[in-house]
C-alpha cells in the first residue's frame, strides 16, 4: 500500500468518528435539556399519583399530614413472604395516628404476583383495599379489580375480630368473603395477604406509627436538585 489511500482512509475514519461524536453530543444536550424541562413536572405527577392511590384506601378528609411522605419500609418474612420490602404510609391528624396504607404483594395469585394497597385504621379496621397491578385471567380472576367488580370493597370495615380468624377466608374455605365463579385462587390469595397485613399491623401497631419517616418533608425535592 502506498501512502495516499492510507492517509485518506485515516481521514475518513476520523471524519466518521467526529460526525458520530457530534450527533452523540447533540443528542445528549437535547436529552438533558428536555429532562430538566420535564423533571419537576414528572415528579409532581408521580407524587399526585401516589397520593391519589393512597386516598383510595384512606379517606382524604380523615388525615391532615403529607401521608405520601410519611413512610417507613418494613420487612417481615411471615407477614410479607418472599423478601418483600413493604412501604407503610402513615396518616395522622393533628399528629395523632389515624391510619396506615401498606403497599404489599400477594405472591400466590393464579398468574403470579398481585400488588395490593391495604389501608388500615388505627383501631385495626380495614379502611380500604385496592389492587394496584395483577395479571389474573380477564373475565375470571380480574374481578378483584375495582374497575371490574365491587368485590374488593367487601374488605371495608373488617377487622381481626370481625369476622374473626376463621372468617378471614373465601366462602369455599369456610370464611365470609365471596369467591368468583371459576376463580377461587385469586380471591383466596388476596384475602390471605390482607389478613396477614392486618395481623402484622395489630402486633406492631405502636412501632409502625412512632418510627421516624424515611422521607423528611421537602427532602424529595432537594434530592431531585442534587
Amino acid at each position, binding site marked *: 500500500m502506498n501512502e495516499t489511500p492510507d492517509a485518506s482512509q485515516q481521514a*475518513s475514519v476520523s*471524519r*466518521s*468518528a467526529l*460526525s*458520530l461524536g*457530534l*450527533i*452523540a453530543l447533540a*443528542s*445528549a444536550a*437535547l*436529552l438533558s435539556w*428536555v*429532562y430538566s424541562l*420535564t423533571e419537576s*413536572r*414528572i415528579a409532581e*405527577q*408521580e407524587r399526585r*399519583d401516589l397520593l391519589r392511590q393512597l386516598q383510595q384506601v384512606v379517606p382524604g378528609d380523615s388525615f391532615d399530614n403529607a401521608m405520601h411522605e410519611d413512610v417507613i419500609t418494613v420487612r417481615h418474612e411471615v407477614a410479607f413472604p418472599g423478601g418483600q420490602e413493604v412501604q407503610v404510609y402513615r396518616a395522622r391528624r393533628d399528629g395523632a395516628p389515624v391510619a396506615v396504607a401498606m403497599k404489599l404483594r400477594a405472591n400466590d395469585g393464579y398468574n403470579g404476583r398481585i400488588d395490593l394497597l391495604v389501608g388500615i385504621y388505627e383501631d385495626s379496621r380495614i379502611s380500604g383495599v385496592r389492587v394496584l397491578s395483577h395479571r389474573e385471567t*380477564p*373475565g375470571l380472576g380480574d374481578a378483584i379489580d375495582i374497575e371490574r367488580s365491587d368485590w374488593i370493597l367487601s374488605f371495608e370495615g373488617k377487622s381481626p375480630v370481625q369476622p374473626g380468624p376463621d372468617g378471614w377466608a373465601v366462602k369455599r374455605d369456610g370464611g365470609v368473603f365471596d369467591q368468583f365463579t371459576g376463580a377461587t385462587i385469586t380471591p383466596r390469595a388476596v384475602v390471605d395477604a390482607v389478613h396477614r397485613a392486618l395481623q402484622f399491623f395489630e402486633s406492631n401497631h405502636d412501632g409502625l406509627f412512632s418510627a421516624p419517616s424515611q422521607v423528611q418533608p421537602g427532602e424529595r425535592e432537594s434530592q431531585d436538585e442534587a
Partner: protein
Amino acid sequence: MTKYADIFANGIWRHNTGLVVLLGLCPLLAVSNTVVNGLGLGLATMMTLMVTNFTVSLTRPLLRPEVRIPAYVLIIASTVTVVELLMKAWTHELYRTLGIFIPLIVTNCAIIGRAEAFASRNRPLPALADGFAVGLGFLITLVMLGAVRELVGHGTLLREAGLLFKTAGEGLQITVMPGEGKFLLAILPPGAFIALGCLVAVRNWLVARRRHVRVPREGIAPGAPRTSTT
C-alpha cells in the same frame, strides 16, 4: 406535487406499515385493545417518525455511510426518550397505560426502516412528509384494530378517552352494545392476531378486486406481492 401524493399513497395505503409491510407488530398487537390506547401509541409513533426522518435527512451531508446506522440509532433513541419524557409529564395516565411500549418505539423496525430507506436518500421536507404519511398509516391501522377489538371485546368505542383528552374526553365513550357477555377473546392477545389477520385480508381483498376490475382477462396476480415480514 405528484411526489408528495406518492409519498402519502405509499405511507398510508400501498406500503402501510401495519397491513402490508407488517413491521412494528409487537407494539401494534400489544396495545391495540382500545381505540384510545391505539391512538396514543399511534400519535407517539408518528411524532417519533417525523422527527427522526427529518433529523436523519438533515444529517445526510455530515454522515459517512459506514457510521450511518449507529447515528440513526442514536437519533431514534434520543427522540423516543424525549417523546417519553414529554408524555410522562403531560399525559401521565396514558403513559402508565401504554407503559413499556413507549420506550419500545425504539425497536419498531418501521422507524429505522424509514430512516434507511427514505430519509437517508431524500431532502428534509419530503422526509418529513414521509414520516408523517407512514406514521399516519400506522396510526390508522392501530386505531382500526383498536376499534374492532374494543367493539367486540367491550362493546364500546373510545372508552377511557380521558387518558388522552383529559377532562374533555370524559363524555366521549360510545356504548354500542350495552350489558354483559362480550366476546372477551378480542381484547386478549389472540384477538389481536385474529383482528389483524382480518384487516390484512380485507385490504388484500380490496386490492385484488380493484386489480380484477382493471385487468379482467389476466385475473389476479398470485398473492400480494409487496407483503414481506421481518
